[in-house]
């Protein structure tokens, strides 16, 4: 029973922590962000499992986390506002060739991050970007400047 409560607490605690970190974990991860993800995962597993390393405990913890994930997925589709809280909202970083510097600063992004995404779309220079949008999953979508 303790494991189930720990798994539920751990799941929501991690969702909140990852959500309030800057948007990058989960997409466009650098080695520095890999460290973050692995370390957080490693720390949370210790308190979830405790001293009980039995298969029963492991199965219960995994199933609880899976159920929490299903519940959150359902709530996201049922209540769009809940989806906004869990996943955030897309943010335009570049709009018709104009940078939104204040938004980028608050999101912890700079022009090199946008250019990294632009190169994937074969855009070679910044002026080739018409729109750059930071998506809910942390990826940056690029819409090319046609002119």
């Amino acid at each position: 029973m303790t494991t189930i409560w720990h798994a539920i607490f751990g799941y929501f605690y991690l969702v909140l922590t990852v959500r309030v970190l800057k948007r990058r974990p989960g997409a466009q991860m650098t080695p520095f962000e890999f460290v973050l993800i692995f370390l957080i995962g490693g720390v949370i597993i210790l308190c979830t499992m405790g001293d009980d390393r039995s298969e029963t405990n492991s199965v219960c913890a995994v199933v609880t986390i899976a159920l929490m994930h299903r519940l959150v997925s359902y709530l996201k589709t049922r209540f769009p506002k809940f989806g906004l809280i869990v996943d955030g909202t897309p943010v335009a970083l570049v709009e018709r060739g104009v940078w939104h510097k204040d938004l980028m600063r608050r999101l912890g992004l700079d022009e090199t991050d946008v250019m990294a995404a632009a190169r994937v779309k074969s855009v070679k220079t910044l002026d080739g970007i018409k729109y750059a949008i930071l998506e809910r999953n942390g990826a940056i979508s690029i819409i090319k400047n046609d002119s």
Partner: protein
Amino acid sequence: MPADIETKQIEDSVAKINNEVAVGSDLEFQRRWWRFEHILWLALTALVILDALGFFGRGWFAKAEAKTPDGSMRIEYERIERFGAPSLLTIHFGQNAVRNGGIQLWASDSLLHELGSQRLIPQADRSALDGHGILYTWVAAPQPDSVQFSMQPAKVGSAWLTLRVPGADQMRLKIAIFP
């Protein structure tokens, strides 16, 4: 297309930027979220500082010392424990704790149940259930001038621990156990 599949005509329901790119951005929400993030980070920073100071156990604030008025015992313990985390409780005996060539210590059963006592060093020569507690007796010379309980709290909440040298003043300690 099979008849039992629910379908819906595509609608232009996602908010657009400059009326040309359907992004569904909600900047007002994003700004509210940043304000929330700011408050949350302040709270998390405070949490870490309080933890470093021992307000959640294992630190300067958590360590405590208590002494019986007659000087029979001085107890070093942690007033804030953590569930499942090992800790020590040390009892230093005064000269007046020695009776008839031996030392006896009565501890309430919360020592076992809530505080999860694992080990006692040095081991008592005798231990017996006595009311709602356990009576430990050391008779062999040399008498220990201090004993140490190694604990691993087994319940979350608060525990009252009563310690007494029979015939002397007792000490009642309140210990909080954090999850």
